[in-house]
């Protein structure tokens, strides 16, 4: 070791000890500061607990056990508008989101599909502790708030009530939600595709259905259920006004009603029964019993083992049945008018709901004509021929051609709903009445919505003689349909028609696909 080196080592030692000293000093200072801080905090807490002037303005009240009946009027979020400015109101709502920022806390309060921004800020009404309490309320908890309504200068884009906000003066938690939610409501209403692009979460169908209670709280679900209810109400109202009678039909039946295929068998005590896959038979009975015009709204069960939005195992059927006097167009006019009334009712009374659903499931506005456009099959063929489709005159429309036709009709007439009349006799069942002017065609029709068939109907042959001829033409074993033919031989009404109408009119508005375990429609 050279001298130089020794000196260097000593210097290093000295330097180290100097560093150590500094460190110790710093730590000591830190400890003092910490102690001071703690003391201050404790003092603060003590002090604030002592002078929390807003103590009775917040908290968790005892569980509502109907101890007292308050005459308190609760306002509704959807009614909060600038006209209510500066009023003091009570409101019960769910905490949709909360965000604390320094001395204030922003809450979004939600009621069904409507929400409003609320604010708790330290001031002469609310203390620091109250703000802290509000910030710690878990999402989806139910709260009672007393607040004054204030107009805002800048619109609140994130809420449905954009022109007002609430300044909370009292806040009580009525029912606390767990802190961890299985799914976030904002994620559940995010449109498909948007989440992937921005790296945001979306919720899988399975998760939604496993937690249906929370999923049903989303604005979209709220709107869809209101629309379903609206369609049924409009259907009932329109038909009742037209003199139809609503009937209730059995749903557990002893024999399969239509064909026998696609029917659910259920055990019925010592024997088995079937779930009704159409109220058809009962409607026919009513017509034969001179009811003249009947309709029914009810569940229909079909054992369809395919996964498309047009093959559901359970759905709500909107069925109508009517006798006509001279021409089956009386029936078409009646049905199309009912549809138009439903469309108009939805347009006039359910605009908010349609817009809400559109946010998650974007779609073009539904367009229709009044009176409804009626085209004949030959016209449709001419349009398809001009568009370059090759098909025979008496050929049925394939699904792609139906869609193409829908687009062509939309382009020319700008309507999403139309009737296609006079189908070729060859593609219809043997009991379809032939066209009086051209034996190649028949008195039958389909109705289309957005390029998909939603309803099909026809005038039926009610003459035993003609029916036998038609059956023989189709090479159908007469023995098998003897009872059907005989029912006309022994005096059925001279002219009547029937057709089943699946409850697909809900398609007037976009409907999210539904899980097979979740097809209960509350109507």
């Amino acid at each position, binding site marked *: 070791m050279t001298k130089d080196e020794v000196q260097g080592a000593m210097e290093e030692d000295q330097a180290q000890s100097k560093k150590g000293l500094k460190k110790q000093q710093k730590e000591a200072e830190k400890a003092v500061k910490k102690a001071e801080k703690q003391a201050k905090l404790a003092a603060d807490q003590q002090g604030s607990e002592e002078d929390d002037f807003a103590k009775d303005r917040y908290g968790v009240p005892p569980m509502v056990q109907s101890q007292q009946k308050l005459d308190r009027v609760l306002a509704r979020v959807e009614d909060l508008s600038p006209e209510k400015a500066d009023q003091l109101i009570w409101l019960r709502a769910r905490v949709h989101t909360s965000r604390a920022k320094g001395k204030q806390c922003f809450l979004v309060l939600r009621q069904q599909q409507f929400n409003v921004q609320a604010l708790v800020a330290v001031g002469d009404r609310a203390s620091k502790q109250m703000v802290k309490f509000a910030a710690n309320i878990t999402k989806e908890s139910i709260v009672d708030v007393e607040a004054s309504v204030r107009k805002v200068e800048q619109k609140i884009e994130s809420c449905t009530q954009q022109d007002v906000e609430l300044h909370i003066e009292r806040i009580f938690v009525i029912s606390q939600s767990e802190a961890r939610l299985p799914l976030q409501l904002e994620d559940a209403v995010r449109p498909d595709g948007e989440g992937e692009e921005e790296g945001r979460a979306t919720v899988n169908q399975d998760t939604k259905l496993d937690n249906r209670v929370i999923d049903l709280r989303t604005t979209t679900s709220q709107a869809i259920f209101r629309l379903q209810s609206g369609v049924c109400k409009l259907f009932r109202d329109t038909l009742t006004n037209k003199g139809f009678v609503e009937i209730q039909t059995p749903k557990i039946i002893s024999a399969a009603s239509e064909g026998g295929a696609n029917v659910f068998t259920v055990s019925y005590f010592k024997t088995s029964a079937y779930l009704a896959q159409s109220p058809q038979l009962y409607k026919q009975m009513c017509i034969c019993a001179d009811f003249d015009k009947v309709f029914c709204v009810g569940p229909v069960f079909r054992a369809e083992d395919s996964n498309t939005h047009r093959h559901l195992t359970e759905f709500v059927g909107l069925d109508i049945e009517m006798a006509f006097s001279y021409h089956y*167009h009386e029936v078409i006019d009646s049905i199309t008018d009912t549809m138009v009334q439903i469309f108009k009712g939805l*347009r006039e009374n359910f605009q908010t709901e349609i817009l809400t659903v559109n946010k998650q499931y974007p779609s073009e506005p539904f367009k*229709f*004509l009044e009176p409804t456009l009626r085209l004949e099959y030959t016209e449709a063929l001419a349009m398809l021929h001009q568009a370059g489709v090759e098909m025979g005159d008496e050929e049925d429309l394939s699904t792609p051609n139906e869609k193409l036709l829908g687009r*062509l009709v939309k382009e020319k*007439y*700008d309507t999403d709903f139309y009737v296609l009349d006079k189908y070729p006799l060859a593609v219809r069942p043997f009991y379809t009445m032939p066209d009086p*002017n051209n034996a190649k065609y028949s008195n039958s029709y389909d109705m289309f919505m957005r390029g998909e068939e939603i309803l099909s109907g026809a005038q039926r042959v009610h003459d035993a003689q003609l029916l036998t001829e038609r059956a023989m033409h189709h090479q159908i074993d007469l023995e098998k349909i003897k009872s059907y033919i005989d029912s006309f031989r022994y005096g059925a009404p001279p002219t009547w028609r029937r057709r089943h109408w699946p409850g697909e009119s809900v398609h007037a508005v976009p409907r999210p696909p539904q899980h097979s375990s979740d097809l209960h429609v509350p109507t």
Partner: protein
Amino acid sequence: MSMYQVKPVCGSLLKPDLPTCMYTLPNIHGQQGNSCTSDLCSEHALQNGEVDPAVKALEARQDEILRKLYELKAAVDGLAKTVTTPDADLDLTVSSSLSSQSPSSTTFTGVTNLDTLIGKDLGALRDIVINANPAQPPLTLLVLHSVLCQRYRVLSTVHVHSSVSNVPPQLLSCLGPRHADSYARQMFQLGFTLIWKDVPKLQMKFSVQNMCPIEGEANVARFLFKLMSPYPSDAALATLVDSWVDMAFFQLAEGSAKERAAVLRALNSALGRSPWLAGQEFSLADMACYCCVFAERPCLLYSL
């Protein structure tokens, strides 16, 4: 051959536009050789006991005259039907239909065949779809529609599109009462579908192949008018008609008060010179100008 040979200056293909209201005579200048042979032929045919072609021609002419008479009868029937309702629009319809039919039936026979005009009949109704804004009812097209109805079997339907509401009832019945056979669309030659819709400009859709709509009342009116009688073949005359039609829609219907006054003065002097705006014959120009004046100032016409 000591002279230069020159090709004929005026080709033999050129056919002069001969009036058909007079008796026709065989051409004495051209095709002399041919006429000689045909004479020989006719003598030959007569000897064989066949019908003289002159007799045949006479028969054809008689049929033609009868056909014209039937047309005239139909026009008069139309007049008798509409004359009972004292409405300015209908009065115009009658006068225009008469005047538009008379030249077309005499001069332009045969071209009213719909197949040649708007494509071959595929066994289906050919439907003309017109989207119009209820705020500006297309008067010209309503007039043209009633003329079309006298010429063809027209299925007229009126619809209201979901983009508008509260259409006045008289607009819903503007194409007249429903045809008794309207349940069978195939029985008609032409469909006239009027849709009251929220459109900035009137539009017409007809062809499915090229979905391009035809925009503007003037252009649609030209199309409909051509379905009944062709445009003047004289380019200058056709341009004159076109300019009157444009003047009517751009300056009378949409122009300022100054422009309107100018057009009215021009109309006045033009009609002082000749019975119709485009000379001796009724044309679309007259129909368009009448409708635009009527839409702006109905009182002006009542005072006439």
